[in-house]
């Protein structure tokens, strides 16, 4: 196997691992916050349903965390196994946030263990809530640090190259790169948003499948409210991300928008098919791209034709961009309608069709996360370290990457199926009605 094949299989394996990992990682970042909020609301309102919601979420969370941890370990090692030349170079500059991420992970792991096994140990639920704060902080902090590493790959800085040697290395400058603020913020809020919609989707599903318990209704409303807040934040930060791209990575924005000619007052291309350089069947929103890029409808946006051909990312990322944005807009709209309707006590809120739409929201949010990452990562091809190292220069020279790809694909299949089976069984065998009854028998319903 020559180097081109090793590069190809390394890319496929990395993409596979990351695509699988981010499903669990996103839940891993978002759900602790949801558990914390549920428990807090429960304590504040003295409402056992929210406490139970926190407890049931925590139980399911263990399964997703387990898969998240092991796939995270996999990608952590694969970075060095598949991209040794890249890690050797980048390690000199970006090791600090990578190292800090393991501390955040450590912190989270310790307190998650304590939290999970002390449910009935403290008389006071507030003490137990305190344990969740480091879990939620650790989960979000590890997302922050690892996203900083990724941001560095998009906008490397904090070092100089002199005759192939790295000099003047400044670890903090490397961390505070221009891609960092928008990336970190976007990753965090979309993780919270996705978790909220996934949990709303589960509650809606239970309501549809016969259970008419007030517990699910409370859960659904809480999650839709949180979903709304984070969907608004996502839209705002998405807009900042567009401005970042226009400024620092114009080729990614141009490729995502199929924007070929540099022009003023550039239109935003929605949907469509590309035939050579002809865009067919597309909606064009006049001036929208200029507004997205620079907040000014008449500003100039750099087009793809102005970049060297071997530095232009694949043009199929346009579909991912469209998919991501449309799902985001749809979820924002859905949560506005739901929350507004609920507050105004409109009848359609409890109608079946609306609940089915909410059920779809969860998987769609996860899909948007995947689309967004594919867009971000494919959009910086052909670079692994934008402007410094091409992907083909960073890969391993080992001859066994294809075999490893098969092995890992098998592993992820087992983990994916296993986690779904276990989660389903866990909640099916112990429905909320049953658990409430058990707890009443045990404690006389006193939760505070």
């Amino acid at each position: 196997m020559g180097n081109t094949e090793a590069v190809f299989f390394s890319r496929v394996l990395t993409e596979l691992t990351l695509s699988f990992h981010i499903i669990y990682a996103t839940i891993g970042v978002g759900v602790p916050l949801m558990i914390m909020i549920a428990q807090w609301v429960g304590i504040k309102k003295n409402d056992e349903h929210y406490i139970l919601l926190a407890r049931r979420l925590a139980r399911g969370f263990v399964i997703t965390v387990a898969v998240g941890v092991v796939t995270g370990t996999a990608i952590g090692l694969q970075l060095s196994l598949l991209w040794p030349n890249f890690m050797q170079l980048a390690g000199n500059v970006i090791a600090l946030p990578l190292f800090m991420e393991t501390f955040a992970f450590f912190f989270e792991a310790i307190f998650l263990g304590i939290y999970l096994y002390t449910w009935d140990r403290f008389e006071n639920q507030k003490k137990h809530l305190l344990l969740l704060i480091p879990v939620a902080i650790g989960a979000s902090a590890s997302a922050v640090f690892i996203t900083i590493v990724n941001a560095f790959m998009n906008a490397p800085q904090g070092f100089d190259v002199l005759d192939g040697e790295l000099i003047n290395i400044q670890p903090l400058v490397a961390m505070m790169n221009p891609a960092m603020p928008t990336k970190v913020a976007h990753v965090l809020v979309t993780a919270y948003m996705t978790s909220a919609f996934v949990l709303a989707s589960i509650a809606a599903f239970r309501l549809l499948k016969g259970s008419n318990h007030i517990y699910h209704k409370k859960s659904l409303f809480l999650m839709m409210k949180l979903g709304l807040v984070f969907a608004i934040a996502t839209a705002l930060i998405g807009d900042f991300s567009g401005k970042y791209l226009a400024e620092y990575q114009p080729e990614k924005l141009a490729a995502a928008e199929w924007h070929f000619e540099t022009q003023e007052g550039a239109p935003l291309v929605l949907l469509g098919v590309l035939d050579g350089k002809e865009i067919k069947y597309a909606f064009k929103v006049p001036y929208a791209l200029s507004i997205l890029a620079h907040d000014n409808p008449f500003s100039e946006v750099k087009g793809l034709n102005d970049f060297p051909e071997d530095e232009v990312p694949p043009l199929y990322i346009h579909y991912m961009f469209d998919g991501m944005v449309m799902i985001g807009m749809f979820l924002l709209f859905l949560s506005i309608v739901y929350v507004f309707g609920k507050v105004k006590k409109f009848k359609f809120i409890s109608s079946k069709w609306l609940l089915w739409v909410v059920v779809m929201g969860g998987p769609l949010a996860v899909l948007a996360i995947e689309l967004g990452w594919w867009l971000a990562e494919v959009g910086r091809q052909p670079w692994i370290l934008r402007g410094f190292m091409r992907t083909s220069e960073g890969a391993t020279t080992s001859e066994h990457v294809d075999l490893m790809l098969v092995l890992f694909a098998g592993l992820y299949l087992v983990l994916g199926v296993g986690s779904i089976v276990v989660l389903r069984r866990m909640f099916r065998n112990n429905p909320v009605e049953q658990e409430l009854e058990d707890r009443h028998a045990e404690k006389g319903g006193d939760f505070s």
Partner: protein
Amino acid sequence: MTLEIVGISVLWIFLFGYLIIASVDFGAGFFNAYSLLTGRQHILTNVIQRYLSPVWEVTNVFLVFFFVGTIGFFPKTAFFYGTTLLVPASIAIILLAIRGSYYAFETYGSRGHKGYSFMYGLAGLFIPASLSIVLTISEGGFVSMIDGQPVLDYWGLFTNPLTWSIVVLSVAAVLYISAVFLTWYADKAGDSKATSLMRKYALIWALPLMITATGIIVELRDHNVEHYNRMIDFWWLFGISALMFIGTVWFVWKREKYGLALSLLIGQFALAFFAYGISHYPYLLYPHLTLYDGFTNPTMAIALIIAFIAGLGLLIPSLYLLLRLFLFNKDYVRGKRDNHV
């Protein structure tokens, strides 16, 4: 003390931490599966589950910490070890993944599934074997440079007695450490049946441990003379380690002072592990990569060390809390509190 030495010492301490807590974990999985096979599961399962439940995730972090730290302090290791270790490290990851996830699946999903338990137990023995390959490779002789790229000689590696001695040593050490630890833990839990069973395992696994450890020193004389000579220079460290080993076996045999026996065991492995590490100096991969060639730039090294100290300030109290609530909590250890999720 130079920054290089600080860096490698930090990493070596974490690797040692992983060695001890992962051994307890891997061994416990094996003994659990074995007791299932021999119909003694009722004796061990409770003790093992109670210990493993709150710490399984923490165990994994020690490993992540070690390899991320290695890349941070010694980025060149990514080039040498990254390229050569693709296959063995990938296999270790897959086994770790099966193990970690099945532990959660089995505990929360379907308690008592036999297939899971066997996979869990077996994976625990293959992981130390696949990870210990790194130690063998670091002795040199298996990696050659072809067109400026490191290439691993798999055939040479798998036919070398040194490889297999290290594999056997790692497995024996895992089972021995785990058995001594669980003897102590079961004794603390007041579970006399589990204590005597684990005590028996501890004594059984002491023998292969001793034989392979001595064997490796002899084999190194042929394989890497330089390393062998440096190990002889530190003979007294290995000597004290051997005395501690005898002490542990003595107390376990006499059924007394299990706490002291456990401390002696940790001391024994700490001394041997650090003596081995020091005698390996200055090579990370003999003879291609030394501590000094592979080291990161000084700015990054200082940043990493500051991050490390700050991180420890956070970790040590948290770890202490974890130990106090579970390992050193009498009611929890004795199963009087089943604080399940």
